C-alpha cells in the first residue's frame, strides 16, 4: 500500500507493506538516523516526532504515518549546522556512545516546544522513555537545562 506523509519537511510517498512497522520502513529507506535498540517500545532509540509528539517508531505501524508529519533527528540539524540541543549535548558531554542520543534529543525538542523553561521533574518525565546505559542521564538533563536557558535568553534579546 502507499502512504503519503511529510518526512523532515519533505513530502514523501512510499510503498509499504500493510503489516510493516514504521521503524523498519524508515531504516529500509535509508533513514538509519533512527536507531534500533529493543523492538518493544521500551528503549526509545527509535524515537521520532509524529506531528511534534515523540513516540517509538518500532511500536507504530507504518500506516499510522499516513498524513502525518514525521521528524527524525536529521530534521533538526546535522554536524555542520547543529540544532541548539545537539550543540548543548556536545558541549556538556552528554554524548557518550551516542546510540540513544538522537531519540533523547527528539524527546527534549518536544519538551522545550511545550515547556520552554522545564523543571527537572518535567525533564525527567520527558526523557522517561529514552534509556541510556552510558551517561546516567546526568549530562543529558544538564544539556536540556542549558538549551532552555540559551533559547530563553535569545528570546529575551529579540523581544527587547
Amino acid at each position, binding site marked *: *500500500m502507499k502512504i503519503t506523509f511529510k518526512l523532515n519537511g519533505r513530502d514523501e510517498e512510499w510503498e509499504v*507493506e*500493510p*503489516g*510493516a*512497522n514504521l*521503524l*523498519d520502513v524508515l531504516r529500509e529507506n535509508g533513514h538509519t538516523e533512527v536507531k534500533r535498540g529493543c*523492538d*518493544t*517500545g*521500551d528503549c*526509545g532509540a527509535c*524515537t521520532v516526532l509524529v506531528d511534534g*509528539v*515523540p*513516540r*517509538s517508531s*518500532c*511500536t*507504530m*505501524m507504518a*500506516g*499510522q504515518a*499516513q*498524513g502525518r508529519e514525521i521528524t527524525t533527528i536529521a530534521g533538526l540539524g546535522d554536524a555542520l549546522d547543529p540544532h541548539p540541543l545537539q550543540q548543548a549535548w556536545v558541549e556538556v558531554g552528554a554524548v557518550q556512545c551516542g546510540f540513544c542520543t538522537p531519540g533523547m534529543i527528539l*524527546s527534549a525538542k518536544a519538551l522545550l516546544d511545550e515547556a520552554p523553561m522545564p523543571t527537572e521533574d518535567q525533564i525527567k*518525565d*520527558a*526523557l*522517561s*522513555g*529514552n534509556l541510556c546505559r552510558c551517561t546516567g542521564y546526568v549530562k543529558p538533563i544538564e544539556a536540556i537545562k542549558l538549551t532552555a536557558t540559551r533559547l530563553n535568553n535569545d528570546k529575551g534579546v529579540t523581544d527587547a
Partner: protein
Amino acid sequence: MGGYFPWVKRYLRPQSLDEAIAAMNEFKDAAAVVAGGTSVAMRLPRRVEVLVDLQDLGLDKVQVTDAGLKLGAMANLRKVEKAAAGAWGGVIASACSTVGSRLVRNAATLGGEMAAGLPWCDIPVLMAALDARVSVSRPDGEEAVSAWQWTSQRPSDILGSGVITRLLVPGHVANEGAGFYKVMRVQGEYGAAVAAAWVRLDEHDTITACRLVSGGVSPHAVALNYAQDALVGSKGDDTTLKYVASMIEQRFKPASDPRFDRAYRQKMTGVAAKRAVQQAIAMAKGGR
C-alpha cells in the same frame, strides 16, 4: 519480536465511524483496531489480516461537560493526563502518569487500554471504580456499557466486534472521593499490584458506599466485593484498613510473572487497596 506481520493483507483507514464498524463487523476475528498501536505493533495474532486504523475519526477529544468528563477513546494517555479536569481530573491524571514511559503515554490510547485485555492495563481498574460509561458502537447502534463490567468479563467478550468511541466519567458529588495506587519498583512499569477506590462519606465521615477494584495481576480488573462490604459503615480507620488488607492477602490469588512472585503480589494487592482507599477518603474529606 518487533512487529512485522507479513500476514496482514489490508490496512484500512475508515473515514467515518460507520465505515469502521462495518469493517470490524465484516472481518470480525480477522480484523484488529489500530488505536495508538503500542500493543498491535508489537504482537499480532496470525488470524488478523485486516488492520482498522481509527485515527481519522476525530475520537480524541477530552471535554468537561455538565454530565461529567467526556474522554475520546483515541485520546492518548498523555493527552488525558494533561487535559483531564474537574474533580476526577487529578486521580485520572495520576493513574495515566503511572502507565509506561512518556513515549508509551504519547501513543497508547484510552480506548486501547480498555480494549486490550492485558493484565497490565491499569486504566480499566480506575474506570471501573469511577463507574465510567463506555460508549461502544456496533452496527445496530451505540451502547453505553458500565466500566464495572470490566471487573467480571474480558474486554473482548464485552466488545465483540464493537468499537469503543468514548468514556464518560460521571460528575462529582460532594463527599465522594477516589484514589489510585500502583505498587512498582520502577516508575511506569507493570505494577506488582494496582488498586483503585471510590468512596462516598456521610457527614460523620462514615463510608456509605464504596467501590474497590484491583488490577495488574489478571487479564481483567477484579472487584474486591468482600473488602467493599467491610469498608461500608466504617470510617476507613487504620484498624479497618489493616483488616481489609489482610482479608485481601488471604483471598486474592494473583498470577506470578518474571518480575514479582505470587506471594508478594498477593500482599501488595492489600497494600495498594489500602493506599487507594486512604487517598479516596482524603479526597472526599478535602472536597468538603
